[in-house]
């Protein structure tokens, strides 16, 4: 099943992999996540879009518990997120995260950035971890930078290393929080290309982004958030051409006018 202009086929999706049920979160007075119900199925690529401050980052961070939630529950592959400790660390290892500001380990080489997790968390032998890391760096096109320190790389290269670092854990799902917003325009595509490739290989992805091209090419579904609520969900083509809600129409008119 191929819908117009999109390479993503919703029919091939599997069982629920990430489930949020009645999730609420406050920052003091601010109700940042309001009764969020959301299911991401295995193999699905979900794009989260919405105005700044609407709670997109908090949503992402709640999924691997970088933020705690006040009530509701979050399940990864049927397992409830543990509160703390070893169980939580193991679960986080299954959830890859790519940050807006890359956050590569500044004191480690590109290669060490990618091998650290497999060696220290998964217990992979260093030699095997290096070999796999080189394969991943090859895949994201930065293998020739493996011995450099992160600060010596361009933003686009750093973000691709960050993707390789997350992939090295062989995650079940990858979270991307505005992965291209900190990049110079000429570097955005090199990162999006890697993400499109990943999507086409069947990776389950939650992507916070305003890149409509990516959403149209790779996403199965777009979720529109505003003021802590999920206001609208639709297939990308439908969402961008014919949004239902006034808030989504208003938001799209703003990002489309420039």
């Amino acid at each position, binding site marked *: 099943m191929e819908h117009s202009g999109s390479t993503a086929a919703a029919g091939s999706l599997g069982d629920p992999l990430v489930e949020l049920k009645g999730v609420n979160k406050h920052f003091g007075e601010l109700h940042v996540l309001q009764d969020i119900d959301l299911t991401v199925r295995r193999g699905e690529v979900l794009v989260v879009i919405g105005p700044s401050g609407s709670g997109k980052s908090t949503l992402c961070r709640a999924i*691997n518990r*970088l933020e705690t939630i006040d009530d509701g529950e979050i399940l990864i592959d049927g397992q409830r997120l543990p509160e*703390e*400790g*070893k169980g939580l*660390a*193991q*679960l*986080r*290892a*299954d*959830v*890859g*995260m790519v*940050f807006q*500001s890359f*956050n*590569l*380990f*500044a*004191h480690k080489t590109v290669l060490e950035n990618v091998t*650290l*997790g497999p060696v*220290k*968390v998964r217990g992979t032998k260093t030699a095997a971890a290096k070999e796999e890391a080189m394969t991943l760096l090859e895949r994201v096109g930065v293998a020739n930078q493996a011995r450099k*320190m992160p*600060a010596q790389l361009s933003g686009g290269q750093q973000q691709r290393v*960050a993707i390789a*670092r*997350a992939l*090295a*854990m062989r995650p079940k799902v990858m979270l991307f929080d505005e992965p291209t917003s900190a990049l110079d325009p000429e570097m955005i595509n090199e990162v999006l290309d890697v993400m499109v490739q990943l999507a086409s290989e069947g990776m389950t992805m939650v992507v916070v982004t305003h890149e409509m091209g990516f959403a149209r090419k790779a996403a199965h579904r777009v979720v529109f958030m505003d003021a802590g609520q999920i206001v609208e969900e639709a297939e990308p083509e439908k969402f961008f051409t014919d949004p239902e809600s006034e808030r989504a129409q208003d938001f799209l008119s703003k990002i489309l006018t420039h």
Partner: protein
Amino acid sequence: MDSVIEALPRFWDGFTTTLFLAVVSGVLSLVFGTILATFRVSPLKSLRIVGATIVEIGRNTPLTLVFIFFVFILPSMGYILPLGRVPAIIALTVYTSAFVCEAVRSGINSVSVGQAEAARAIGLGSTQTLSLVVLPQALRTVVPPLINVLIALTKNTSVAAGFAVVELTATGRGLARDYPADVLWMLLGVAFFYLLITIPAGTLAGYIERKVVFSR
């Protein structure tokens, strides 16, 4: 001058005692101070409170008082310590750990939270996050202030002179009494031996600082 040369063996004894106090308490303070710093940034509130309490006591109590506690008060409560160097090392360590802790903690805070979040996101536990990602970066920024703490420690060992430890300052006092005509020379000799520790330490600090500066 001749008297200084005559007194050299005594200077040397005082110097090695001072060096011993400084090195042993210095190493212990680095260890305990770093542990205290990890308490102070721990996710567990109880550990943070314990850390903060120890640090505030150490930082806000005059060193002489800390000595009095370990040399007189603790034994009077029945905890007998061997006299001399041991209570001195304990007092110096308790006091200096508080300053090491604060230096390390400010280093930890200088590492952006994104580094720790990225570490946790790949599944590192909180101890691994601290030891593999945060502390190695923190220690680089923390070397210069730490050396200052250790230089202060070297000078603080002189407080032990008042508590039956014949280190450099006590030696100087003795020499001044034994060679009343050469008091100035004897005191200059004492100062010289302190500088023999602190100046190399300062030079080392500058060297390490240049060596470990790296771009983030």
